[in-house]
């Protein structure tokens, strides 16, 4: 029985992702949202490598990989080609945060400015995981990576803030921009469906914790994604024509509950606790909460 059901999965088992891989779950959910009438364009990265070592592809829909940084341009060409042929497939890019925030920005900017009818999904695991956990423009402030290691002269890890990619794409005039998290699968699926059914270039950035790169147990992937939301370090929101319409509200927890469970932030607690650094990260969460209005207000007790 189990094997028969496997055939209904458009993103199949047998891929070589680490156990507990957040991006692998994102790929599954993505295809649940798109169904079969889609063409996927993938950038080089963890997901591409773990899902398509020749000839063992995990993709049950048309899929193409060209290079690391050109997925949005490849998708532009696919979309133009389909348009010319009068075909109906939706064109969806799937790319990691390095491909999206850093090396692919030129192609993404061009594709969004030209207004191609594509949906670009960035699976954000906050560093270059395929090459061994190097810092990207999506790496959060304070995280230790192999290129922002901690040391006597750098006790804090990554000294730079996470780039605000959704705002950059909204500024291109994207009609629909959203953030999502694999901790909320139905929400992610709903947002993908909205994006592919919105004409024009749409962007979804889905938070996909990486147990190997962040340093937590493989079973905790969703728990970690949920904590990011609950601390305000990741905000799930939708922007329609540049305006934030919906942001998930939470009763916020201190960021420490999230940070202390990951090896990439271990230096903030050991050997000595760095209260000033933890406070800076708490300030990032506070600013997010202020900007997106995510705090659930506790009712003032009646006088």
């Amino acid at each position, binding site marked *: 029985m189990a094997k028969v059901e496997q055939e209904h999965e458009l993103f199949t088992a047998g891929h070589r992702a680490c156990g507990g891989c957040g991006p692998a779950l994102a790929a599954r959910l993505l295809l649940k949202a798109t169904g079969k009438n889609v063409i996927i364009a993938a950038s080089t990265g963890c997901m591409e490598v773990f899902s398509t*070592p020749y000839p063992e592809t995990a993709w049950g829909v048309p*899929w193409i990989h060209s*290079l690391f940084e*050109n997925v949005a341009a490849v998708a532009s060409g696919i*979309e133009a080609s389909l348009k010319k*042929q009068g075909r109906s497939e939706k064109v969806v890019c799937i790319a990691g945060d390095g491909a999206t925030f850093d090396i692919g920005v*030129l*192609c993404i900017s061009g594709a969004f400015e030209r207004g191609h009818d594509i949906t670009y999904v960035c699976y954000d695991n906050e560093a270059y995981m395929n090459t061994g956990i190097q810092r990207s423009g999506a790496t959060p402030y304070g995280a230790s990576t192999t290129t922002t290691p901690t040391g006597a002269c750098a006790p804090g890890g990554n000294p730079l803030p996470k780039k605000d990619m959704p705002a950059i794409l909204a500024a291109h005039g994207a009609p629909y921009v959203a953030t999502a998290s694999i901790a909320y699968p139905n929400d992610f699926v709903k947002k993908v469906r909205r994006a592919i059914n919105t004409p024009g270039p749409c962007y979804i950035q889905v938070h996909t914790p990486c147990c190997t790169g962040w340093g937590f147990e493989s079973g905790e992937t969703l728990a970690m994604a949920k904590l990011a939301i609950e601390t305000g370090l990741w905000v799930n929101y939708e922007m329609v024509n540049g305006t934030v319409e919906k942001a998930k509200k939470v009763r916020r927890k201190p960021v420490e509950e999230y940070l202390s469970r990951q090896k990439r932030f271990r230096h903030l607690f050991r050997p000595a606790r760095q209260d000033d650094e933890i406070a800076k990260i708490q300030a990032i969460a506070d600013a997010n909460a202020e900007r997106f209005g995510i705090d659930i207000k506790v009712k003032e007790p009646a006088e």
Partner: protein
Amino acid sequence: MMEIMEGSRAVAEIVKRCRPQVISAYPITPQTHIVEALAQMVADCELDAEYITVESEFSALSACLGASAAGSRVYSATTSQGLALMFEVCFNVAGMRQPIVMTIANRSLGAPLSIWNDQQDSISLRDSGWLQFYAEDNQEIADLHMIAYRVCEDHDVLLPAFVCFDGFILSHTYEPVDLPSQEEVDAYLPAFTPYHRLDAEAPLSMGMYATPEYYMEFRYEVDRAMHRAKETFIRAGREFGEQFGRDYSAFVEGYRLDDADVALVAMGSICGTAKDAIDEMRDAGKKVGLLKIRTFRPFPGPEIAEALKSVSTVAVLDKNISLGSGGAVGTEVKAALYGSGAAVYDYIIALGGRDVRKRDIAAVVDLAEKGKGDLFYGLRTEVL
């Protein structure tokens, strides 16, 4: 119908008649007249194509790759720095076996910055898996585009092609060109039938990655396709001749070579100058001829050896330099003639748009006859 027109116009007119469905290009001198003309044709409803105005050459070829993989006939044009920016995509397109045709208006590469002609750009991509055709004049550049689509899209080949002509020297020069009608082109070049395509009805993963167990075999397949392209080119060139009266079945063409003692070897517009110089040298009693190379990839080594078998001295004119080695054409001609007994000399000439006159050709022949070669020809004296 024979018309006097600019080389770039001739390219645009013939590309239009080849009916590309998607065009993606980025403006760069001296390629611009081609893509401007095509954009105007699309605007005027003369050409039913999607024209993608990309933000870089890198994206131009990437978009062409996506469009081709989705099953459309595509076209692009570039040169020099633009082609250099496409380097990574070029290897990718060939490895993914997409039959993209791209015009190269040959131009030098910086530094120093130069917009003028040599062939360094396309020759530097000789290992990328693209077929490379070089035109002597504007008739040939127009004709080679039709042949390129036929060869590239053949399911025995499935490789992309650079169709090269010298920037400014041909791209901006007016010559008489006999352009076939749309009906005639349609009769020669059928609609594009992709070998496979991105299609929800028949899912396929394209551009997967290869482990060491498979990588070499994929490179081998591209190399085999390159070799099969020879047969396809011969057939397409012969059929072109049957239909249009201009036969292109030869990878190399000799000019007054039969009894020659000295043979010049060259690619592109310099062949025209060389022919005039040879006529004058012949009038003066020198037995000089020319071997023009039309297809640099696949490289016609055996054909060159056969054509030059009775020649004692060979002078290769190289509009490129593999720095630290020599001219790329000369290096390969030497390899093709290895063991033949001919003395083969290489001359780096006309880099960065330096003009080549008939007397320069004659001077090169003199040098070769004296056994002086493997040098830069015509350098300013202050560097010597």
